[in-house]
């Protein structure tokens, strides 16, 4: 927050940005909070999104540098898409990858529809997906993708807070899929990603 042109004529409201990006207003606000869209606030406290940031995002490029190390992915770097509606886990995974695997280009979708659109258009090397998502659970998405291998070549990794007992309800759709418990993300996720990258055709 705080970047952007600072010129209200050049910048967009959250609602305007959402319409241009085809996303929910809340999704745009979360992207701005994470630094994925350059934004600032008016003296009245109203958020404004940099028009150029929206245009770059629409063209498929990452925009504002993320917080933390500021490391940028190398050209041709590895691509990871995260579908998770929890801002907390979006933040943790973003920070973790910037520190441990700075060559990775990460995109985040806060809900399934935006995630599937990005999956199709961006074709990440790896899809990280939560099980409990608004509207459509991640296990159903994973099962559908596995049943239709022509849809994507992305390797699949499920991240979840569900304990073993509660995961049983989704066992059929997740059989054989790499699963990383959110409680051990910092320890387990980098290694799981390296294995997934190594398995790419």
């Amino acid at each position, binding site marked *: 927050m705080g970047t952007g042109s600072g010129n209200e004529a050049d910048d967009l409201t959250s609602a305007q940005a959402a319409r241009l990006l085809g996303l929910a207003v809340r999704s745009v606000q979360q992207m701005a909070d994470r630094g994925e869209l350059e934004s600032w606030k008016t003296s009245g406290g109203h958020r404004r999104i940099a028009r150029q940031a929206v245009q770059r995002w629409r063209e498929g490029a990452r925009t504002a540098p993320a917080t933390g190390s500021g490391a940028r992915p190398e050209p041709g770097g590895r691509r990871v898409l995260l579908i998770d509606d929890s801002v*907390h*886990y979006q933040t*943790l995974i973003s920070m973790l990858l910037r520190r441990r695997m700075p060559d990775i280009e990460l995109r985040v979708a806060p809900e399934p529809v935006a995630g599937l659109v990005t999956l199709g258009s961006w074709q990440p090397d790896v899809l990280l997906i939560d099980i409990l998502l608004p509207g459509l659970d991640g296990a159903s998405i994973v099962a559908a993708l596995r049943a239709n291998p022509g849809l994507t070549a992305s390797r699949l990794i499920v991240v979840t807070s569900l304990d073993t007992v509660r995961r049983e309800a989704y066992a059929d759709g997740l059989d054989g899929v790499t699963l990383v418990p959110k409680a051990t993300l910092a320890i387990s996720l980098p290694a799981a990603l390296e294995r997934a990258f190594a398995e790419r055709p």
Partner: protein
Amino acid sequence: MRDRQAVIAENFDGDGELYEDYLNACRAQFARDAAAGDAACQRADHRSLQRLAHSLKGVLALLGDEDGAADAATLETTAAALMNPGDVWPRLRARLLAHVPAA
């Protein structure tokens, strides 16, 4: 709260800087979570409360706040029960109607 060094070692792979950066980010988001929870309570939106509690349960445990994580777990279960009354409401409904004289 659990011992900070133990939390860093067990949950952040020994990366103290990651822990501090993440804690600071969480603090900013917690204010928004509190507002979201208030709004969900006001409109009796049990599904949103359940989702919020589910997320906070894990995050607070990661940060070593075991009491907070326990409260979030209780709220998650409570909110889920309110969304899915199971066979309790049909049973209660039958009992209510059993009191109503036949027309």
